[in-house]
């Protein structure tokens, strides 16, 4: 509480200042049934005035008229019409004080802070104090914004015309870096986005500039700088207290300015405003509301970007791939929302520094621990318990963050009467940790680690368990203002086990394991103003055990199966150059050269000439020694982007991406199943190669509060993996005999309309897209649907999503979402026949039919605790209803021979509306 005293003294000083009234200008204005915010904008534009107020006032309707009045008189009029008190300071600032009047003669209580504290203030006094603190803080912010900050040494001001300004953007209260904040100057617009360390760096002409710093969920601010030479500017952004204007998705800089097509930044801040199943806020489920991102079914694992399969997404957690992104069959993602800062989704316009998957990059960044003080927070939902602990190791220098999440489902299952439930178990837990340490101004070390466990056993049958582990050590080094580097060493592991011990004679255990070792160095260089070069090298060694079956117990007769290990080395050299040619025209060109070596030990098979790849045609088996190069693939990948601004609020962009993928999930189920395996490209399995052309038109309205974008893309994929009928991929030694070489194409148009601020925010998107596959091999067994193009499992032509949030007041908001999409393709029987006196069906062409359309509405009411600064525990409640209309959306449609007939069925995961209450708490 010492600090409070200090703030109050500051306040008194400010108030004293405020008493020096200046010469009074006269004001005039006329507002009929006008929004408060519009009136303020008008006033601020005409007079040298700054209004400070919370968002709850935005849409208050005012009705007043005044002409040739003094400032005080005008404020009084505004006060009457809006029913809000204001405090005028320095004749230039008008501060909303709500229902409290600030008197220029001070309340005697303020001078007796200590005494007040001892007395335990009444709630009313507390509120007054809160308000006073807020005002003092606002004022300090204002001072920061208006004072001129000198950067660099004045003595160097004549050496060259430009200088580099860099620094960190941090969250004011916790000291955590703010990722993806925009730092820019207007007219001409020059700016950058902070990286995952909150760092930014860019070149500006020397002289005076006003820099604006904005970030989703943060209060925007500005700094007036006088740039003499290269120097540093650190900015603290405030979170929450005054402004609760938070949005979930932002196109980083505004979408007009940035270079990327197909990009979205997902911010975790207010993610729980989006209703979720059983109260687990989930960043991957939020991604599904974006145009071009779809799923094969309710709760299915993973997501599909622009018609690609789920394994074509590079999902990174702190720059390390996560091989299984799902908990509980896919109902939840592995990302604990409490420890995530943000996620970036790149559907196209992917920089050369990313590679290895062909559909998208989903880059999830962990946030930093609180560098200022120890805090913890947690939550409880019907499925999980969560706890996050963080704090400084050394104040302002190093911090830690640990997040734990676990289900308590076994306990609930054990309480149930039904023996099927009692004998089942299922659950997951995950643990995330991050330590960051600033060695000095030029060096920072970051260690992050992740571990998750999943298991389920259904009705005493087989037990499935899987584990994800990943760890990375990153070293960030600044050579100079113009050049810095990030180097990392990373390890990832994914393994699963499937065991069955019900019958001791057949008891077995199957396991799968993949190890991923990676080294990467990336340089970020700013050669001159408005130019940025990123280049580097990365290398990944994959070492995987594609499957092993072992007997379990002495009685088991199971013969062990041990598939050959697979090893591969993926190396890439990349460089990309981004340059703003003119104010209107920016370009990016990147090249990534990826090389994949399939390494021994291993075996490869030779087949008789002119025969399909089937086991009976194998003529020879070649055994390869350890680390022998069995096969090498070289893939140059060109990446191009361009942006042309047609106006301040309108731009057009294009991009071209070529990507290679050397590691694939083998799956012939529609949804990713827990026993699917990642396998490497080899002599027999060629890398998947994707080419994507994308073009978009972006427009903002009403300042930047509304955004609209239209994007179109065309994509081709070579060497898509399709499977023969009835293929068995588990423990399959000769994979190529079950795979049909195929190619894919996808195209579509995505329209997004978004309102980012105000009481009513959200977005509406519509997507038309197609995704098709063609398998037209030489042999009949390599042709599917007669060699014609047919819809892939992810082909859902029409899809529309509405995500909306309405703030009733600071503490209560309502979210309402609607999702619609065409049903996914399915294979239906075309003919029936009798065999052994029972009816059987023959299936027709693959994916010729569709399951019924998907439609769902969700609603959520979120109640925040009050925002008093000194409250120790900040609690919030969320009440949501998923699938409000109780529509039984089809997950699949299938047919069964039952008795003497063929019956069609529709399987739905949810048939009812699912209400959930979630409680979150946070220790301040």
């Amino acid at each position: 509480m010492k600090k409070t005293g200090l703030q109050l003294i500051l306040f008194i000083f400010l108030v004293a200042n405020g008493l020096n009234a200046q010469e009074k200008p006269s004001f005039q204005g006329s507002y009929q049934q006008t929004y408060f915010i519009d009136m303020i904008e008008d006033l601020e534009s005409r007079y040298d005035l700054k209004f400070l107020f919370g968002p709850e006032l935005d849409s208050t309707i005012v009705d007043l008229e005044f002409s040739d009045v003094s400032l005080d008189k005008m404020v009084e009029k505004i006060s009457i019409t809006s029913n809000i008190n204001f405090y005028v300071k320095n004749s230039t600032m008008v501060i909303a004080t709500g229902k409290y009047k600030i008197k220029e003669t001070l309340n005697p209580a303020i001078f007796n802070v200590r005494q007040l504290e001892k007395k335990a203030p009444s709630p009313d006094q507390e509120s007054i104090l809160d308000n006073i603190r807020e005002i003092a803080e606002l004022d300090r912010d204002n001072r920061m914004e208006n004072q001129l900050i000198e950067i660099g040494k004045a003595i160097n001001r004549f050496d060259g015309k430009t200088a580099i300004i860099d620094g960190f953007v941090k969250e004011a209260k916790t000291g955590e870096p703010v990722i993806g904040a925009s730092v820019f100057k207007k007219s001409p617009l020059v700016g950058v986005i902070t990286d995952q360390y909150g760092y930014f760096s860019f070149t500006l002409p020397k002289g005076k500039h006003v820099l604006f710093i904005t970030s989703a969920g943060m209060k925007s601010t500005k700094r007036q700088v006088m740039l003499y030479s290269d120097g540093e500017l650190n900015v603290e952004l405030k979170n929450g207290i005054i402004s609760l204007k938070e949005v979930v998705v932002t196109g980083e800089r505004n979408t007009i300015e940035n270079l990327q097509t197909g990009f979205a930044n997902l911010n975790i801040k207010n993610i729980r405003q989006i209703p979720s199943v059983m109260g687990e806020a989930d960043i991957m489920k939020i991604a599904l509301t974006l145009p071009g991102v779809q799923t094969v079914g309710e709760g299915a694992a993973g997501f599909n970007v622009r018609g690609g399969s789920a394994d074509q997404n590079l999902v990174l957690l702190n720059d390390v791939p996560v091989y299984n992104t799902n908990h509980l069959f896919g109902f939840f993602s592995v990302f604990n929302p409490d420890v995530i800062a943000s996620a970036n989704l790149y559907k196209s316009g992917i920089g050369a520094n990313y590679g290895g998957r062909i559909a998208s990059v989903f880059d999830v960044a962990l946030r930093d621990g609180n560098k200022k003080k120890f805090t913890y927070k947690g939550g409880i939902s019907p499925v999980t318990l969560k706890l996050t602990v963080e704090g400084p190791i050394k104040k302002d220098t190093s911090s830690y963050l640990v997040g734990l999440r676990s289900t308590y489902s076994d306990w609930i299952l054990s309480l149930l009467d039904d023996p099927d439930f009692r004998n089942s178990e299922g659950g997951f837990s995950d643990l995330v940790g991050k330590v960051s340490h600033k060695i000095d101004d030029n060096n920072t070390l970051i260690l992050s680690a992740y571990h998750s466990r999943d298991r389920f056993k259904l009705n005493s049958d087989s037990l499935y368990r899987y584990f994800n582990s990943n760890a990375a050590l990153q070293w960030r080094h600044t050579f100079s203002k113009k050049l810095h580097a990030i180097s990392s060493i990373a390890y990832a592991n994914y393994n699963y086990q499937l065991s069955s011990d019900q019958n001791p004679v057949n008891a077995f255990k199957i396991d799968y394991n993949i190890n991923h070792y990676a080294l990467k160095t990336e340089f970020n260089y700013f050669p001159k103003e408005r130019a940025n070069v990123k280049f580097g090298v990365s290398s990944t060694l994959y070492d995987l055990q594609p499957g092993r079956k072992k007997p379990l117990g002495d009685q088991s007769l199971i013969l062990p199966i041990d598939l050959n290990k697979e090893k591969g080395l993926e190396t890439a050299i990349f460089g990309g150059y981004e340059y703003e040619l003119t104010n209107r025209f920016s370009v990016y060109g990147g090249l990534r050269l990826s090389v994949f070596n399939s390494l021994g030990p291993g075996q490869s098979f030779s087949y008789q000439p002119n025969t399909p790849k089937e086991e009976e045609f194998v003529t020879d088996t070649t055994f390869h020694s350890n680390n022998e190069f069995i096969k090498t693939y070289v893939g140059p990948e060109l990446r191009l982007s361009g942006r042309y601004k047609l106006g301040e609020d309108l731009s057009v962009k294009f991009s071209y991406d070529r990507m290679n993928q050397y590691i694939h999930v083998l799956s012939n189920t529609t949804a990713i199943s827990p026993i699917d395996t990642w396998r490497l490209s080899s002599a027999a399995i060629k890398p998947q190669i994707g080419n994507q052309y994308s073009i978009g038109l972006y427009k903002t309205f009403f300042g930047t509060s509304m955004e609209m974008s239209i994007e179109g893309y065309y994509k081709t994929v070579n060497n898509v993996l399709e499977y023969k009928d009835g293929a068995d991929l588990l423990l399959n030694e000769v994979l190529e005999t079950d795979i049909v070489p195929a190619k894919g194409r996808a195209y579509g148009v995505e329209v997004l309309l978004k309102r980012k601020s105000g009481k009513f925010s959200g977005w509406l998107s519509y997507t038309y897209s197609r995704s098709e596959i063609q398998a037209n091999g030489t042999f009949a067994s390599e042709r599917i649907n007669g060699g014609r193009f047919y819809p892939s499992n992810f082909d859902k032509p029409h899809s529309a999503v509405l995500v909306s949030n309405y703030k009733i007041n600071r503490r209560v908001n309502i979210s309402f979402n609607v999702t619609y999409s065409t049903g996914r393709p399915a294979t239906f029987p075309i003919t029936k026949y009798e065999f052994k006196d029972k009816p059987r069906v023959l299936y027709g062409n693959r994916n010729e039919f569709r399951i019924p359309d998907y439609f769902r509405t969700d609603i959520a009411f979120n109640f925040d605790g009050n925002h008093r600064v000194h409250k120790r525990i900040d609690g919030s409640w969320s009440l949501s209803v998923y699938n409000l209309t109780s529509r039984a959306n089809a997950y699949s449609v299938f047919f069964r021979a039952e008795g003497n007939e063929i019956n069609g069925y529709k399987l739905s995961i949810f048939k009812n509306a699912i209400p959930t209450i979630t409680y979150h708490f946070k220790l301040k």
Partner: protein
Amino acid sequence: MRRVNKYLVLLIYLGISGCLDPFDPNVPESDQSFVVVDGIVTDQPGPYTVKISRSTSLNGDSDKVTGAEVSIEVQNGGTETLIETRDGEYETSTLQGEVGKSYRLNINFGGQTYQSTWETIHPSPVIDSVYYQIRTIGTTDVEEDEDVVQFFIDSRGPDDGPRYFRYELEEVWKIGVFWPSYSDYIGNDQVVLTTNPRHTCWKYWEPSGINIATTAGLKSNVLSKHKIAFVGREEERFTRRYSILVKQFALEEKEYLFWKNLKESNEDLGSIFDKQPARVLGNLKNVTNPDESVLGYFSASGVQEERTYVKAVDVTPSLRRRPFCNPMDTLKKADFDMPEEYEETLLLAVNSGRSFFIGFYFSEIGGNVLGALLALPKCSDCTLKGGDVNEPEFWEE
């Protein structure tokens, strides 16, 4: 719906009501029709039957192929032509399948020649035992559990013998009625032993599910505790005496895969991790027009059989519980003005088959017949429950 998807079980606890609803997808009528062959030669005594038909639309009735020329060729041993005994069914007359020999099916009709691959009869391993366990399973009603009988099979063969098996099952069980009628009323308070007993019947059922097993991947050719049938109390299976016959067919791997795919795409669908349903074709092809797909299979298998009985006393009371039937009607002489009317009414009732005579209704003091006890047919006639009054030849009490 007993075959509840096991993944859904866990989801249900999460408040998720995974569920199945009937669904009619409106698949348009297909003009494609395929030839379907269902034929087998075993090491058991013949005759062996080959059925030929054409596939139909999903709601269509079977379309038999008549007048085809059908023959089974024995490798290095001549050919036997089959005779069409019923529409679309062709039978051998003298052929006797032998272990180790290979057979091939040839069919000619409509100017097309169809032929199977060579199939060899492998001996089926000896069945060690067929046994059962009673299990309690949950039902959709939380309050009520249900007992079921799970049958298992153990078998053992030489390690270098066949390791792929298919099972066919035949269930036979004896049923009774709630109000058995042992005598026929012939008038004047006289009865004779019934000439047309309807109180004891046998019911037959062949479960339709495809049941396959393999010992491939095991050190020795031992099949242990393989689940063959999962039987509930439906249709009074365990009220008297129940019997199940298990036929074990020895298969080659490719036939096993045929059955596995057929099972996966016809019976196992409906989980949240469904495979892409397969287009399952067998071992036959059209020699004249190789592009035409032929459905079905011509197999040659060694067969072993084993029959097991389950007595009503050996199962739980809930399994042997009989469905209750409404109380009897009582026809009292006193309710009629004239004795002839009583006589006529009673004879009409029992002779028309609308009622069954159960017994007389006596005066408590004198032993006089005061009337007759009658039961409704559904309570006294087991053939109405789908039973057959003739005792099967093999039946053992």
